[in-house]
């Protein structure tokens, strides 16, 4: 090979190296630009700014994020917004903090949904999927019921395959704010504790439901033993099963903590369940205790869209001590959101 040929070869080699280097730089930059970390940072910053804007907006408003966000999970709490991709480690979570004026709350979670909306309702900043934001007012209305003589705590008994999920934790020992259903007025009763009223409400509901519907009953505390479940699969309602279930709900003693997550998981695992009635104080103390995380998990479990109606067992009294009142408000919030996010109704006794 002569010298001229070698020089030409070297030149071609050099040009190729330069092109490869240029392409690599471009590829790295492109990859970086489209990296999930960058996207997550942008999303978290945008949501933080949306929250600041909503706080500074007089009245109520809903803002939709103008991008598809189906790859990401968002959890909003009263001090931060976190953005991450399902399944990735804690260290990859992008967190942005913000400050709310006193009395404001922020909450909500969205996972794997195309749209994301932030709404301001009075002093609440709510993060949710947009389809549900359209029905904000409808969804979050607390239907306060003072009389519960029909339905289950006043909620109409709709649905074909129904699970009653009943809290039997220590808090069910408290005096109930609910009236006994009319059917129980003349009956002998063990007392007026939450658990007693629950017993009569279930019996009343079973009497109102026509034969042929399918049902089950799940009691829960900090654990759910086998004997706390009426039947592991749906039972068809008839005279015999009605009597058996009425016997089943008698005499439960309140004790222990509240594992809402496992209870709802069990209820949602019933094949073809379309309606759940959840009776609780809304204060999970075992397993998943963070309300935002619990809502997220329930959303994941309830892919088939069962309606979850929630019943608060407590009365928020004007003379409640501040800590007690705060706990009740939190419980109310969680139950309200559970119902709103799952097409159900939330009821609470009034003072």
């Amino acid at each position: 090979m002569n010298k001229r040929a070698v020089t030409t070869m070297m030149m071609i080699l050099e040009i190729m190296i330069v092109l490869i280097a240029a392409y690599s730089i471009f590829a790295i930059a492109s990859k970086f630009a489209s990296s999930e970390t960058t996207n997550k940072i942008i999303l978290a910053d945008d949501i933080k700014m949306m929250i600041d804007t909503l706080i500074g907006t007089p009245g109520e408003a809903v803002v939709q994020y103008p991008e598809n966000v189906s790859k990401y999970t968002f959890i909003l709490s009263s001090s931060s917004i976190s953005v991450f991709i399902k399944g990735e480690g804690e260290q990859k979570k992008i967190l942005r903090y913000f400050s709310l004026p006193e009395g404001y709350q922020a909450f909500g979670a969205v996972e794997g949904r195309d749209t994301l909306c932030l709404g301001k309702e009075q002093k609440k900043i709510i993060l949710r999927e947009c389809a549900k934001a359209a029905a904000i007012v409808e969804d979050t209305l607390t239907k306060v019921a003072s009389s519960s003589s029909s339905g289950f705590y006043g909620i109409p008994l709709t649905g074909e395959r129904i699970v009653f999920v009943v809290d039997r934790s220590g808090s069910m020992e408290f005096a109930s704010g609910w009236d006994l259903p009319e059917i129980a007025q003349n009956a002998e009763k063990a007392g007026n504790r939450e658990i007693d009223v629950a017993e009569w409400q279930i019996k009343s509901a079973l009497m109102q439901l026509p034969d042929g519907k399918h049902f089950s009953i799940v009691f829960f505390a900090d654990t759910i033993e086998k004997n706390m479940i009426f039947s592991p699969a749906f039972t068809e309602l008839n005279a015999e099963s009605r009597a058996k279930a009425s016997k089943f709900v008698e005499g439960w003693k309140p004790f222990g903590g509240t594992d809402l997550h496992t209870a709802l998981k069990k209820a949602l695992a019933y094949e073809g369940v379309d309606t759940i009635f959840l009776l609780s104080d809304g204060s999970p103390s075992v397993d998943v205790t963070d309300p935002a995380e619990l809502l997220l998990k329930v959303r994941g479990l309830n892919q088939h869209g069962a309606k979850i109606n929630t019943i608060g067992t407590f009365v928020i009294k004007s003379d409640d001590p501040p800590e007690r009142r705060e706990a009740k408000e939190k419980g109310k919030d969680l139950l309200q959101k559970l119902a709103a996010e799952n097409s159900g109704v939330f009821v609470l006794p009034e003072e």
Partner: protein
Amino acid sequence: MGEDDIFDLTRKQVYWGIAVFIVLIAALMLVFVFLPQYKNSLIEVPQELRAELISLRFVNTPECFTYQDQATGRIFARVIDLQKFTQERMDKCYRTKPEKGFKDYNFALELEGYTPTIDGQKKLLSSNKFFNKVDFTLYKQVLVRNGNRLEPTTLIIHVQTRI
């Protein structure tokens, strides 16, 4: 190997040595300078915009300083209620984290013509981690409700972005 060939070989070695060095420097510059700059340019939001959005609450939110008619509940955006314009209210309106709040945006508010002076110093309403390191200032034309009168003035917002 002739003298020319030895010279050629040495020249190539020097040439490639310099080329590798330049590529290495370029790679290091890319990783430590250009990519972080590029990343910042992608995620950057102007500080003034961030401050503007946070400070909307000072003039539009009744939980901060905005006047709200007690009888009707109507909120008068951009009308500052002079009775509400207190440090106590500021603490409730905007509060950064006690430990790391100095890394966040902090504000000091001055209502032109209404801010008292003590020992020659204006007594501003400030957020909990404001340390007088003012990065920039925002001005908002507002009305002040003083008794039953509405008077135009300027809300001066001193912004400390980060310490």
